[in-house]
């Protein structure tokens, strides 16, 4: 039976460009620009300085904070400098910039016997490898795997509900055994709860492969999910597969659930079995504006321009380049930003697919209210957020918005409600800081 959540929206899929393209490696880049903060949490301090030689897999940034994730270089080379660079969101972040040794082999990490490892050692290896959620939010995985209460369900997120993206689809298809083994490790760390794989029905080949392999697995099952956006959002996914609702302001473990993306589960396996740090991942380069759409494995710190140049450049009719999915990704003005652990896609979009238009006043049609998967009032949040009346925007639910973009998608006035939500959250954070200062 196909399950789903309430509300949301049916989007065009746009997966045809790349869903049949096997994962391939990109050629060696000349440089790596590795941000010291690619995750939710405390930034790392650099462990290397200009002029240092670095080896493939070497840790180059670390933090003592628990909510943080170490960063490593996937390739050997020489540190050119440690300097601020704009990331994909346009923020200036500290980066380690490495001139990559040309002519090196792609690094490998041999498998070790890991069958008898105690849970603490497994967790330590995951933390050491700097693994974060690879679905986009980039929350450190070792933190998620240290919940303060009992977990009785692990959900492996194979929805890939954003249009265009197919890298998780390909991973499920090509690395199903690793995915299942990684998921088993995740379950083991959490005390052995049941595992559910949630996959949208537009990936029938991946579903077939996984279901066939899961036949012999106890405590693991695959749940087919309707192709509806945002099916892969944590709260919506948990509700669809288990009927549990995570209350506002709470996290999945408050209802006994941990959600991990498929790429993360594979990275966990590699960290434990091969002691491989998270130095590469797969992204989908796609869209009508790229001559060679596909699913490409790249080293963290590769710039957008390297991906695009080594795959044949952009076509002339490209109007927008987006990192991430089309609903939540970041538009790029230049292509120099480095790709991080959370980057699942580069979209080369043409005017047929995306248009930047002016917006009008809210006409209260109610479409955003009908479709909001969090049952908020995007119309009021937008109106008050635009007027700068942030506290009223909060009263209508701005702080519970996870910025999926459904409201903007359906809006006939094309109002940038997600921007108004971000403004509201920023204002709330500033107010909170001011209040804290006053209290001190």
């Amino acid at each position, binding site marked *: 039976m196909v399950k789903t959540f309430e509300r949301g929206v049916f989007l065009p899929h746009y997966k045809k460009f790349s869903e049949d393209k096997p994962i391939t490696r990109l050629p060696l880049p000349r440089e790596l620009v590795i941000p010291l903060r690619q995750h939710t949490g405390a930034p790392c301090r650099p462990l290397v300085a200009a002029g240092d030689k670095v080896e493939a897999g070497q840790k180059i940034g670390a933090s003592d904070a628990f909510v943080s994730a170490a960063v490593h270089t996937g390739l050997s080379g020489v540190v050119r400098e440690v300097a601020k660079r704009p990331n994909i969101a346009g923020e200036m972040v500290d980066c380690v910039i490495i001139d990559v040794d040309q002519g090196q082999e792609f690094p490998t990490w041999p498998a070790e016997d890991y069958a008898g490892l105690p849970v603490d050692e497994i967790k330590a290896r995951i933390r050491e490898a700097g693994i974060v959620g690879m679905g986009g939010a980039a929350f450190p995985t070792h933190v998620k795997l240290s919940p303060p209460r009992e977990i009785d369900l692990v959900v492996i997120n194979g929805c890939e509900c954003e249009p265009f993206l197919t890298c998780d689809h390909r991973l499920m298809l090509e690395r199903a055994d690793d995915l299942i083994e990684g998921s088993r490790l995740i379950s083991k760390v959490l005390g052995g709860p049941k595992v559910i794989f949630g996959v949208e029905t537009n990936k029938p080949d991946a579903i077939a492969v996984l279901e066939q392999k899961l036949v012999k697995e106890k405590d693991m099952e695959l749940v087919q999910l309707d192709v509806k956006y945002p099916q892969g959002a944590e709260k919506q996914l948990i509700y669809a597969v288990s009927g549990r609702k995570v209350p506002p302001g709470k996290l999945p473990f408050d209802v006994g659930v941990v959600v991990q993306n498929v790429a993360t589960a594979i990275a966990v396996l590699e960290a434990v079995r091969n002691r491989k740090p998270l130095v590469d991942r797969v992204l989908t380069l796609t869209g009508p504006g790229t001559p060679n759409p596909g699913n490409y494995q790249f080293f963290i710190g590769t710039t957008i321009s390297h991906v695009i140049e080594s795959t044949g450049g952009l076509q002339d009719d490209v109007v927008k380049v987006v990192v991430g999915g089309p609903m939540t990704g*970041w538009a790029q003005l230049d292509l120099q930003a480095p790709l991080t652990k959370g980057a699942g896609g580069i979209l080369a979009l043409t005017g047929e697919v995306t248009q930047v238009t002016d917006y009008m006043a809210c006409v209260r049609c109610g479409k955003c209210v009908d479709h909001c998967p969090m049952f908020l009032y995007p119309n009021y949040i937008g109106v008050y957020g635009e007027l700068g009346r942030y506290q009223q925007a909060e009263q209508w639910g701005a702080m519970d918005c996870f910025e999926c973009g459904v409201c903007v998608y359906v809006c006939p006035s094309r109002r940038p409600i997600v921007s108004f939500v971000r403004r509201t959250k920023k204002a709330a954070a500033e107010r909170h800081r001011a209040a804290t200062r006053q209290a001190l």
Partner: protein
Amino acid sequence: MNKALNLQFSTSPHLHSQANVSTAMRDVIIALIPVSLVATYFFKLNVPFLIFVCIASAMLTEVIFRKIMRKPLSLHDGSAVLTGLLVALCFSAATPWWLAMVATFIGVGLAKELLGGLGWNRFNPALFGRVSVILLAPWITFLNNEFFHWRVSFPGIDTVTQATPLALLQMGLPLPNMGTFFFGYPGGGIAETSSFALLLGGAYLLYKKHISWHIPVSMLATVFVGVAVLGQNPFFHLISGGLLLGAFFMATDWVTSPITKKGQIVFGVCIGILVVIFRIILAPTEGVAFAILIMNAFVPAIDNATRRLKFGETRTPVPAQQGVPVQKTS
């Protein structure tokens, strides 16, 4: 990269549905074509003339107000054209053009533009204009006297002098048969000529998903039950007066109706109750228009009262626990 990039920037999302205010307005206008044609059949050129006067004055009013307030012109959103058309449809075909013009001016100028333009108006502009000229009757008499010789009328106007069906009912006179009423009967306002044509338009709007069933059904059902309880023929009430125009085209106005489906049902039921009161107890003139305008004023209250819970929220909130050890630090 060899060529210069000229990339656009915007915040997410980067996809957009085809939903568009102008398209919606256009579809509502299309939905009103059948009833306009039926009325034209009965009242000849008087109908297109009045519609032309109203649409032209609506557009002119919007341009004038926007110029004065130094705002960008917004004729392309189609709302001025639609408001003009709706005002015209509320009148009888014998209405002098200056009266229709004044109503349109008040509707578009005062009820919409002065309140901030499309989206900010609290009251349905067309109904506000229509009702204003009723309330301004003494002043209108003056206009009627001054401008009497400028009256424009085309052949076919005699038909208009027929009593409206609701007036016939009120006076206890014999009524024409129901089928005639339903498909086409030249009594009352332009939009009262054919219930069939209005239902056709309403069905089109439902099909196009510009409106949902909640307001029309709750409103019509309430009137149906209400008049039946009070001993009158409910079918007759459904198809007479401005009820169908109000239910499908006025009460469903996005801007001036509640935002949730639950609120829309409350709204429709309340309008229905008011219509019954106006029709049975008070004089049978523009009861629907008054009922909708009165409820327009309560829309914010309805929105608040029917406020829904967020995803995962419970009616009795447990005191927020701050004990979640994993706090996002950035």
